[in-house]
């Protein structure tokens, strides 16, 4: 009996309480949508919401990992912009180039992430500042590559974003779920995953325990770079071309689902499943606001308020005695 109680209390305190909160918000949002419009609760609409969640899902997945280690990656927006331009610019309408270019840009994104991680490890500067700096560098390179939309992609390149299994289930969004499950599995069942939490929980202890904290940090920023690049490929698939500011809004947008999903900015607590739910919450919120005919301007207001609401729920214990 006591074990049950303890497990429950652990469940509630272990960041998984976040799931309950997000699920609650999702349900509320769903009810509001259903009351507002009879077109809301249709499979058509919900499949659209699902489809539109993919881009945010990839980049937030990477962001979750950096935040779990107590860091943050503010360079993802710039990485998305650069990679998006390179994708459409290098493919430039040639179907034969699709595979090599996509592979190249995914590797490139990962390498930029490795550099972020290495800079964090070597300089000891707060990741916020490091990735702000590297983000500026990457953005500058993107602008050197081109000042406007660059290149084009073959028509069928839109399969990633718009393709549907059996004409219903979005391919991109399903790939996103698969990747979330993969990362969840890695976090739970591998030593590297365990160390991600440990490094975020207490970096000093991680060093004293001789855990491979440098490798962990480089790893999470590499992952973040990879997923940012994947988001870029997705966005090119969706819009047909990359621009120097394709990713501009994604830096901050990628953080919202993470914190709404219950991952603490302080590190060591939370997880990717919460983030996935957070992504769906954001997508659903936008959809409901569209149904409410709220101007896009006020959608921003509501998003800001949701962040405040969600975050105030996970109030950390006051450290002051």
């Amino acid at each position, binding site marked *: 009996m*006591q*074990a049950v109680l*303890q*497990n429950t209390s*652990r469940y509630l*305190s*272990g*960041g998984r309480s976040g799931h309950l909160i997000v699920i609650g918000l999702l349900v509320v949002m769903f009810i509001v949508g259903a009351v507002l419009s009879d077109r809301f609760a249709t499979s058509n609409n919900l499949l659209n919401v699902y489809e539109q969640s993919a881009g945010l899902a990839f980049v937030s997945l990477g962001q979750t990992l950096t935040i779990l280690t107590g860091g943050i990656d503010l360079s993802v927006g710039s990485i998305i912009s650069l990679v998006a331009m390179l994708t459409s610019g290098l493919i430039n309408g040639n179907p034969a180039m699709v595979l090599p270019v996509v592979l190249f840009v995914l590797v490139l994104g990962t390498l930029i992430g490795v550099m972020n991680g290495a800079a964090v490890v070597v300089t000891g500067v707060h990741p916020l500042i490091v990735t702000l700096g590297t983000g500026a560098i990457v953005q500058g390179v993107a602008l050197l590559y081109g000042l406007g939309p660059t290149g084009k992609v073959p028509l069928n390149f839109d399969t990633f974003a718009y393709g549907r299994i059996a004409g219903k289930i979005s391919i991109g969004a399903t790939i996103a779920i698969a990747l979330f499950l993969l990362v969840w599995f890695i976090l*739970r*069942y*591998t*030593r590297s*995953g*365990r160390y991600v*939490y*440990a490094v975020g*929980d*207490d970096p000093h*202890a*991680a060093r*004293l*325990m*001789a*855990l491979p904290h440098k490798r962990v940090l480089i790893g999470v920023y590499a992952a973040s770079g990879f997923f940012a690049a994947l988001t870029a490929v997705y966005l090119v698939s969706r819009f047909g071309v990359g621009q120097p500011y394709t990713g501009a809004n994604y830096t901050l947008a990628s953080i919202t689902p993470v914190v709404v999903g219950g991952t603490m900015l302080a590190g*060591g*607590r939370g997880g990717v499943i919460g983030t996935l739910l957070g992504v769906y919450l954001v997508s659903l919120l936008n959809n409901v606001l569209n149904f409410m005919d709220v101007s896009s301007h006020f959608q921003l207001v509501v998003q800001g308020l949701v962040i405040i609401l969600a975050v105030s729920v996970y109030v950390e214990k006051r450290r002051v*005695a």
Partner: protein
Amino acid sequence: MLSLQGISKGFPGVQALTDMQLEVRQGEIHALIGENGAGKSTLTRVVAGVHQPDTGSIDFDGALVSWSGPGDAKRHGIHVIYQEFVLFPHLSVAENIFIGHERRNRLGLIDHRRTRSDARNLLDKFGIDVDPTTLVRDLSVADQQMVEIAKALVHDVKLLILDEPTAVISGPEVTVLFERLRALRNAGVAILYISHRLEEIFDLCDRVTVLKDGKYVATRMIASVERDELISLMVGRSLSELFPKRNTQSADSPVVLEVRNLSIPGRVHNASITLRRGEITGLAGMVGAGRSELAFAIFGAMRSSGGQIFVDGREIHDMTPRRAIAEGIGLVTEDRKGQGLAMNLNIAANMTASTLSQFTRFGLIDFAREFKVAKQEIESYRIACRGPSTSVSLMSGGNQQKVIVARWARTSTKVLILDEPTRGVDVGAKIEIYRIMQELADQGIAILMISSELPEIIGMSERVIVMREGVITGELTRDEITEETVIELATRRYAS
């Protein structure tokens, strides 16, 4: 088991160790003592592979070794339990025990079930009563320490190093710890035990090595050494008396502070105390008995439920730190770095922090006056520093403590509460702090001294209040204070 020869280690600006030697044998508990700054931590870190020595050789388990890092030393059977635990608060006990050595299945994946059962077996084997699925942050400090020890036992530990393990626990917990350590010694583990408390060393250890100023002084058998000899080896001079002479005349001095029936939900129950002008009152008890919480509540830094606080006979409602300061109450907390000092600021700023408004005109600080006062206090408390503008982060623990005491030792102060005032400071600084406390009492300040060290309680207190599990179990006057009476009250099970 371990033998160090000619070890030197320098850091930019400091020569931490010079020509150091140390020998620890298998199956012994070897004490390492010395004042703060004597080089104990650096020596520990060299043995544990955190630092590489500049010169000298380390022999371990019959071979000349050179650690590439802490992981290397650990693999060879050296395990350190630092004063600050190396635990991950949001991982479970079992996960913490096996961190770095995760229990995995054939696929290389973490085996959660085996992690739990192995942890349970390990804890059971050494009689440690902790649920392996609990999150470490939900454990008491003593249980966290047991988890630290369990971590050492995962490996074939040959040398266990403990850095001031009793700084955070007391009473029966210490007894339990010592039992475990003796069991390990009898199982053939070499133990290096670092402590400030001589009593413990005589109780637990077989041999002792004394360090001073980064140099080796002597190694002695505990059975054939006197306490005074150890002290004089440590501080370089003989000390006949730790505690200052008391001027007893306070039995009927006026009551300055009276607390009636104060409670803190879950921590303190119906506590009532009185403090008199010029009197040093000891507040004894185990760690976790609610003494610090009571102090915080009196000072208004922790919410209390019910109860009344009177200063000079006037009731003060809704106590806050600001009100407490205005009423002349000061609090020196146990955790200097975490609570007492703004490490980024200099001595002067830290001294005047609580009385800043006395140093301002039109909202601007009178730096000349602030420095003048700071200089006077540096002199009167013999604080070792270059001057009022020295950053407190560069000072030793004892000197930091004096800065905090100086902060409160103003003419306006009527009551000063000191929570473990000599924790983590060396013998020399201890004597200084005792002297300062006595001087303050002689000036008429009522002092409440929270301490877990019996000699200190007995040596300093005019009167002793004892707490146990949040309840005041008794009060002893001068003649009644002995080790036995205090321990009896601190551990007594009252009729329930």
